């Protein structure tokens, strides 16, 4: 059922009649690659819930475990699964002896000791997770303030981008005017412009305006459109039938009204897509926040997290906990908007 659906949606790369073995091999390769992709995430999560002692385990277990202990005469001693006289039982290691040996006792009967080779026994490990790392990490990095700044930059910028790019894309998709093609080529060429050639004077400009160390340099430029989003929106606008515009025109609608009442509602999938891409861009952006935001109360999450790491790199568990929280919103968004990514709603415009 699922297969039938996907085959109608996508062209195959000439794989009909492909043998079952081939499909199996492809699935196997994909599964192996998927493991490579997922393991770092697992490592991130497991490190995030470890305590200081667990962090010192080398190699680090992917499942956060800690040595099981038992209290013997008021002291915490590690528990081992011990094989003795063909029987397996849990015993505590209370003392190391030369030659890799150790003194073991039965916790129920701590007075009788047995001397055994430690390497022959297996230490008992329990899964141990410290979820308190999350609130602790967020408190230490002053997460709330960073989150507010990031949300401001992201959503105000998104509003500016959607507003300006819709107007500009409409201008480039529905009208004929002298030099308009040249303008469009100029616009596209800015995609390939290395940002460095405009970065420094832009910084100087914002510095003169007194905007450095405010969120404004990250938000205001979004109100002046960008090539990438204009291009994607224009490609989509071009697919909306001109008859709709004509009908609106006959009804006496101005071009602006046509944009608002005809084009925008029709172009919702494209608008949603560029909004999502903008969210991801602004949420993850590091370079510009790093340059423009100097005092901690203006930092975004990206800068805050980097600094948190620079200052407390040894607290790997807290750094990973904070990192996990930071990547959560993009991941949630990704799953909510999966279709846009997996079906390439907008990307089809890239070709040709």
């Amino acid at each position, binding site marked *: 059922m699922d297969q039938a659906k996907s085959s109608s949606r996508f062209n195959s790369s000439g794989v009909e009649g492909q043998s079952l073995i081939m499909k199996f091999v492809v699935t196997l390769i994909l599964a192996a690659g998927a493991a490579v992709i997922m393991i770092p995430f697992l490592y991130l999560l497991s490190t995030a819930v470890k305590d200081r002692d667990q962090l010192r385990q080398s190699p680090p277990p992917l499942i956060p475990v800690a040595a099981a202990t038992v209290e013997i005469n008021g002291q915490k001693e590690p528990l081992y699964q011990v094989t003795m006289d063909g029987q397996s039982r849990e015993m505590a290691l209370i003392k190391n002896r030369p030659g890799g040996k150790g003194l073991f006792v039965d916790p129920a009967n701590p007075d009788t000791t047995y001397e055994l080779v430690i390497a022959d026994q297996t230490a008992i490990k329990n899964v141990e997770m410290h979820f308190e790392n999350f609130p602790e990490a967020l408190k230490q990095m002053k997460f709330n303030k960073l989150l507010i700044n990031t949300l401001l930059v992201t959503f105000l910028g998104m509003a500016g981008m959607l507003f300006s790019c819709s107007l500009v894309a409409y201008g480039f998709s529905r009208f004929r005017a002298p030099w308009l093609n040249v303008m469009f080529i100029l616009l596209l060429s800015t995609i390939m412009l290395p940002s460095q050639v405009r970065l420094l004077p832009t910084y100087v400009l914002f510095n003169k305006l007194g905007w450095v160390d405010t969120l404004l340099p990250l938000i205001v430029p979004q109100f002046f459109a960008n090539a990438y989003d204009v291009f994607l929106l224009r490609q989509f606008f071009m697919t909306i039938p001109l008859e709709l515009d004509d009908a609106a025109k006959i009804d006496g609608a101005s*071009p602006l009204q046509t944009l608002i009442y005809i084009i925008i509602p029709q172009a919702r999938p494209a608008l949603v897509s560029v909004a999502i891409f903008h969210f991801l861009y602004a949420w993850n952006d590091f370079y510009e926040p790093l340059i423009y935001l100097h005092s901690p109360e203006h930092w975004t999450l990206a800068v805050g997290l980097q600094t948190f790491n620079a200052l407390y790199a040894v607290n790997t568990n807290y750094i990973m906990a904070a990192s996990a929280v930071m990547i959560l919103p993009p991941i949630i968004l990704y799953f909510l908007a999966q279709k846009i990514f997996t079906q390439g709603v907008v990307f089809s415009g890239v070709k040709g």
Partner: protein
Amino acid sequence: MNSVSRLSLARRESLWAYAFITPWIIGFIIFTVGPMLASLYFSFTEYNIIDSPRWIGLTNYINLFHDDLFWHSLGVTFKYGVIALPLGLVFSYLIAVLLNQKIKGINIWRTVYFLPSVIAGVAVALLWGRIFDPKFGILNPFLERFGIHGPGWLADPDWAVPALVIMSLWGVGGNIIIYLAGLQGVPTDLYDAAKVDGANAWQRFRYVTLPMTTPVIFYNLVLGLIGTFQYFTEVYVLTNGTGNPARSTLFYNLYLYQNAFRYFHMGYASTMAWVLFVIVLGFTLLIFRSSDAWVYYEGQLKGR
């Protein structure tokens, strides 16, 4: 009379067009043309932001060509680009081809493969910094299982750049998405025709899929090239902006950043920016010129 009204109609349309693109025109002047000209001017000056720029002619350019770190940072960037760019392009293309097969649960696989591309940035760099840790990371213990004694990765000047390449390969999801869109755009009848002609799976790939997707390969190549010269966040986060160990990760963009925002040599940094611009432009033109030979556009007839 008729011609007058038509003219005014055309003029009115032009006015509307330019009214709508005004936000971009203003932005283009304020944030692109103006700054580009200003940075060109800065590149001939000594400028520390506080005092006004002082004209020093070609001094910055001459100093730059005698600056060992400039050449070094260029070398680091090239080294990374020469490994990461082709590897990333081929790797993501192959994955895209696999993800374009008709297999049960293909959407789940796609979801997994695209996932890393949405979380680029600081958190990912921090995560990989830990993964590469020789003692507490997970990469070297994994290699150890195969009897390979892993290097110090980011702590080793010889292995820091390869480590960054590995990290970049993990995040090629964005490329895959674009490739997949291209692969899905290949018309099915071409495959059918090839099959009628008796082409096997490899021939169908070589003579249909590959030529038809050259435009997306081209697109990813150009953007990948520009991305290489902009490479910054990961290396800044992993080295706290130093480009260490032994400056082995002092990428061009990082060195530019240091000059601009650590030492406030705005003039010198602007010189670097313009030299970079010329380099990128040169490469881009080269790729564009070469595209005639290998990029196929549908509906375009060639004299071949």
